[in-house]
């Protein structure tokens, strides 16, 4: 980017600077730390210059926004055309309460719905299962059947909203319910817009709501890809997630490396299933974390876009430019929030959100400040939404695309992250691919080591957490947190009982048998799942049927 003469001059001045300006200063005022490092142990220099980016080529490495490799953004106008979607994750207790929260958020200006499901729903257990005891309606809404789905979306026109469902092992079931519900509203499936997370690999790595072993789980995912490419072209069929991997303790490089490695595994699986990456590539979406180290995060998002575009092009020979684009949703890092001095979290979330916007996210969830204590209150959720609105309307950062592009620091960091990510991808290839790497426990071990090291650094004050290991105060007031209604479980059980009495047991049984047969014979299970949910088969019943055929996953042991 700079000509050789200029670079030589800069080199000369740097030498002068280091010897005549820096040295005397540092002798009198030593720096605050011995070394300055990012989360992924990148050493940060005093300052960055053209010398740090001398190999960078604008056209090939950066390009204009909306052109491969999309480093600067996946669209040419980005937020000048349309702001990022402000999508706050919500859902708790009953479908009725969730529905109310949805209507509230929509009235406050939220532009997309995001559904959280409780653990039994995510893991394929009905609310009356013994495994579900104590967990019904806790971390999200309990959905046992199409009945509950109808309540969840009451008076919400499915052709007018975009719904993101955080559901993985049971994604086929919940998606089928969404489709069935739309049908009842008179909305054809091709009008539906939204996303299902549907990313099983990260469940094995970091989130834990798996059911079946990797192979059949990958099959279900490609079934969904296939079905949706035909009937729900407007739906994002996977949200390849790094958020949870980061939350589990990974650093920024690992977050990107393991997420893209998962992506590679899904693309390979889909290609093996006969799908065209030029087509389904357009419907892949990603989900990342917005963490603390501001500039590293921004660089991380840019690196991710560039790496993915290159992988799709070079590794999978994708020609359709739209299928090279890494589009992503971001959530601010929950694990960075503290229970101590919760108001501090508002500042944390604001900086993390800003990094996500400067990094070019397509949609964003900002955490509420009381989340280290429990589910957020209406007030705190509103404040979190306002944080986004203030960035969008008051700061001016959305007025140009990739404002930090060209910063020597940001470009160097972007390239360094890319390098380290590629090293990991190579290692994973050597292990036989992501599924093997997960089965061997390699990914989990890497993450755990980083997490442990970080924890030890917090304890010896190498890492500071304001309010926790520095600037602590004596706290007494018990914060108001959202109360959980213990009656929910009983009410759901009642609902289930009534449902099972009302419905036609025989058609349910038949539908489940057909589903099992399709699963055994390697057919696409979606039509059969759809049929089952229309007859009011429950999440638990459908999951059990599939468990009978596919078996259950046993955790890789690393300790």
């Amino acid at each position, binding site marked *: 980017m700079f000509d050789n003469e200029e670079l030589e001059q800069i080199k000369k001045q740097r030498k002068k600077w280091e010897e005549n300006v820096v040295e005397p200063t540092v002798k009198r005022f030593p720096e605050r730390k011995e070394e300055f490092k990012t989360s992924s142990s990148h050493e940060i220099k005093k300052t960055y210059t053209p010398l740090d980016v001398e190999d960078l080529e604008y056209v090939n490495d950066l390009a204009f926004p909306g052109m491969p490799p999309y480093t600067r953004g996946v669209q040419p106008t980005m937020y000048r055309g349309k702001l990022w979607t402000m999508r706050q994750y919500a859902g708790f207790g009953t479908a009725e309460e969730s529905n109310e929260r949805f209507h509230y958020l929509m009235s406050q200006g939220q532009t997309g719905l995001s559904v959280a499901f409780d*653990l039994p729903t995510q893991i394929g257990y009905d609310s009356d299962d013994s495994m579900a005891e104590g967990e019904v309606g806790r*971390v999200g809404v309990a959905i046992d059947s199409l009945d509950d789905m109808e309540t969840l979306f009451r008076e919400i026109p499915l052709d007018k909203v975009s719904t993101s469902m955080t559901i993985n092992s049971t994604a086929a079931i919940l998606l089928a319910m969404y489709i069935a519900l739309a049908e009842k509203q008179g909305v054809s499936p091709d009008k539906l817009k939204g996303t299902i997370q549907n990313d099983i690999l990260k469940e094995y790595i970091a*989130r834990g709501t798996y059911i079946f072993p990797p192979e059949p789980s990958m099959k279900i995912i490609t079934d969904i890809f296939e079905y949706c490419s035909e009937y729900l072209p407007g739906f994002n069929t996977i949200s390849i997630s790094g958020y949870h991997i980061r939350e*589990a303790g990974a650093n920024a490089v690992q977050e990107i490396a393991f997420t893209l490695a998962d992506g590679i595994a899904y693309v390979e699986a889909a290609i093996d299933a006969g799908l065209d990456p030029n087509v389904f590539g357009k419907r892949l979406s990603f989900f990342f974390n917005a963490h603390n180290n501001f500039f590293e995060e921004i660089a991380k998002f840019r690196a991710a876009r560039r790496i993915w575009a290159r992988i799709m092009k070079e590794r999978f020979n994708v020609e359709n430019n739209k299928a090279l684009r890494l589009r992503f949703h971001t959530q601010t890092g929950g694990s960075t929030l503290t229970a101590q001095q919760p108001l501090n979290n508002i500042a944390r979330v604001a900086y993390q959100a800003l990094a996500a916007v400067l990094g070019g996210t397509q949609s964003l969830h900002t955490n509420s400040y009381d989340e280290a204590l429990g589910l957020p209150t209406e007030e705190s959720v509103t404040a979190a939404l306002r944080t986004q609105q203030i960035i969008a309307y008051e700061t001016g950062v959305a007025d140009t695309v990739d404002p930090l592009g060209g910063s020597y620091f940001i470009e160097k960091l972007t390239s360094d992250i890319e390098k380290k990510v590629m090293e990991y991808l190579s290692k994973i290839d050597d292990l036989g691919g992501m599924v093997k790497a997960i089965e061997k426990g390699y990914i989990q071990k890497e993450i*755990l080591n980083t997490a442990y090291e970080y924890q030890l650094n917090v304890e010896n004050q190498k890492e500071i957490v304001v309010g926790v290991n520095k600037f602590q105060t004596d706290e007494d007031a018990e914060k108001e947190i959202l109360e959980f209604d213990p009656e929910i479980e009983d009410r759901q059980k009642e609902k289930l009982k009534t449902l099972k009495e009302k419905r036609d047991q025989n058609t349910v049984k038949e539908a489940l048998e057909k589903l099992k047969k399709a699963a055994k014979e390697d057919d696409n299970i979606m039509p059969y799942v759809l049929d089952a949910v229309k007859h009011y088969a429950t999440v638990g019943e459908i999951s059990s049927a599939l468990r009978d055929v596919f078996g259950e996953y046993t955790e890789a042991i690393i*300790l």
Partner: protein
Amino acid sequence: MENKLKVLVAKPGLDGHDRGAKIVAMALRDAGMEVIYTGLRQSPEEIVKAASQENVDIIGLSILSGAHLKLCERIQKLMKESDIEDKPVFVGGIIPAKDVKKLKEMGIYEVFGPGVPLKKIVEKVKEAVK
């Protein structure tokens, strides 16, 4: 002759967040203890059986899904039935202040919320066994 502390670190219920449990297990191991980390999705029955057969000195439960009261209740009950209710139980996770009280009344020895240093946890574990 050999006085090693034996600790069970368990993840009861459906919660899949195991970063904290694993880190605590590593810290305890690095402090010279013999640690059994159970992995995810343990039923109260499995946890108590392991605690009994292995005759651990301490039981550690990690619960971040909010189901701590129900799960601890069940576990305490089973511990009583298996004659091991004397073994101290530590609970770690997202526990609101008023539930901490309830847990202690149930017989839980100590509750650790987010941000408690590993050093402190190791200390408390050693204390509990004396």
